């Protein structure tokens, strides 16, 4: 049973994910995790590669069925919804920043950003957002003509276009120079300040994200709740 906190956006309890590798070999990627992200919070999950961070994020995004446990998004049990209802929830309430440069190579920058919105004037909205991330002049550019930092900003802009209540960011600043990383961190912090929840999984120093709460993840477990930074 999930203990609801005030203004909770997403929470999970006893969340487990086991992958069957071969024969009887099982890997507990996420093991008995409880977590809550509330409005205006930036929750950082820090851990090394293979610790289960991305698997946890995928389950919170409604994209990976847990082996056991439950995820509640805006007071709805995510995995009691069918896949189309979960897709609708993602479209309306969740923004996801993926670690890889997942962009449609044949759509220009503005169209890639607009992909995250179901509104009529999404392209105009996308161009405004590109302006905010410093890519206004690249609106008609295809992704493969853009640098890594630009593409990362594009992905963040796409995750933010529908003003999601929950932003899930997987390694949002990895392999970026300080300037680009700074732009992205500012966007994430600004989004939390507007009354939304932000969950970041990273192997970078958590202090950089102005985190409200920092969790350490190792071997599929949230081993320690670090501290409230600010």
């Amino acid at each position: 049973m999930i203990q609801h906190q005030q203004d909770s956006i997403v929470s999970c309890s006893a969340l487990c994910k086991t992958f069957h590798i071969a024969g009887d070999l099982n890997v507990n990627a996420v093991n008995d995790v409880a977590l809550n992200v509330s409005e205006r919070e930036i929750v950082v999950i820090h851990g090394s590669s293979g610790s289960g961070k991305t698997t946890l994020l995928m389950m919170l995004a409604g994209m990976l069925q847990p082996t056991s446990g439950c995820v509640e998004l805006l007071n709805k049990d995510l995995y009691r919804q069918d896949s189309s209802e979960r897709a609708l929830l993602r479209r309306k309430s969740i923004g996801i920043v993926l670690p890889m440069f997942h962009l449609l190579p044949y759509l220009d920058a503005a169209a890639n950003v607009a992909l995250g919105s179901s509104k009529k004037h999404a392209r105009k909205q996308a161009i405004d957002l590109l302006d905010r991330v410093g890519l206004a002049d690249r609106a008609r550019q295809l992704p493969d003509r853009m640098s890594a930092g630009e593409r990362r900003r594009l992905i963040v802009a796409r995750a933010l276009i529908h003003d999601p209540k929950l932003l899930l960011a997987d390694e949002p600043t990895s392999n970026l120079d300080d300037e680009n990383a700074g732009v992205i961190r500012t966007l994430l912090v600004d989004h939390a300040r507007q009354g939304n929840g932000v969950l970041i999984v990273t192997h970078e120093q958590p202090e950089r994200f102005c985190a409200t709460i920092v969790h350490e993840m190792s071997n599929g477990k949230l081993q320690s709740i670090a501290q409230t930074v600010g």
Partner: protein
Amino acid sequence: MTSVVSIVFAEIRYRLLSSACVTVIVATAVSAVVFFMLLTDLAADRTRMIQRDIGLNMRIIPAETDLELYWIKGYAEGWISESLLEKGIEQDVANRLVPMLQRTIPWGDGEAMLTGIGDELFARGEKMKPVFGGIQKEAESLTIGAVAADKRQLHEGDQLKVLGRDFTIKRVLTATGTVDDIRVYASLPVVQMLLDMPGKINEVRALECHCGSEIDDPEAYIQSVLQPLFPGTRVIRQDSLADARRKQRMLAERIGVVAAPVLITFAALAIFAMAFLNAQQRQQEIGLLAVVGKSAWTIGSIVWLRSAVLGLLGGLGGALVGWWLVNQFGHYFIGAGNAKLAFNMQSLLVGGALGGLIASCGAFIPALLAARRDPAATLRSAG
């Protein structure tokens, strides 16, 4: 919102080579199908023309006719009412009904076969070049067979009396090597008047229609259709002509029946493979679309619509190519030197629809698989 359609068209432009491959596969299949279809049509037209040139293969004569006498004399002694033709045309087993009245008449020191030819009647209101188009139908004119004219030294423009009435020879036919060479042709009403047989005929010649091709015993079937419409008659069917024609037509149709589905299946399988590969190639995109909250239905639509659009384009192109091919090379297959088919929009639409259908069927399962794919697994495998 970035619409499904804009995603589909952007992807087609981006992966132009693989898109072109799908289009070419569909176009090839559709052009081959259209080629066979149009060639079959052209062959059917050609067959009709050949058949018309050979002659009519059915004779409807009075039931009481002694066939031995009929073949000796060349005509039936009895008669049937010309009015039967009004109802008789309302069937689909015999076309080009030509009412005739024939009798042997004394002519000089010999005899001639006086033959009255009525207007040719076409089933289903069709209008075609009449078989006996060369016979003059004016009241005061005669057309004479080559042997009859030669024996009496008659020429076109000569005047002569037949059964006490004056006529002008309008045409002398070239020799055919048949009984037609001794005929003296006039219009049916004139012959009825000369023989004092108004409203009477003694034979209807006709051409067997396509309908006999799908049944085991065409003769019995034709009899069963015509008997109620022509009471008091019997039908003589020249089997060798009719069967040869039927077999030829069935062979052509069988080729079409076998070739078209084989080609369509081949194209659908090729498109299935290409759509499947396309969906595999686009795993990352499919995962991404799931990430941004696109429903399974939308994702499936994107994969399916791409193939459907390319199939439609291929189908339209294929229809044009098929039509061009049949006009360029059709004569090699059917031996009609100047046979041309006018292009019609229906062929284009059928081609487009066929192409869209082939591609839609081919892409259906890959689209379904793409739509049902686990987004997290897709991203993991693509990442």
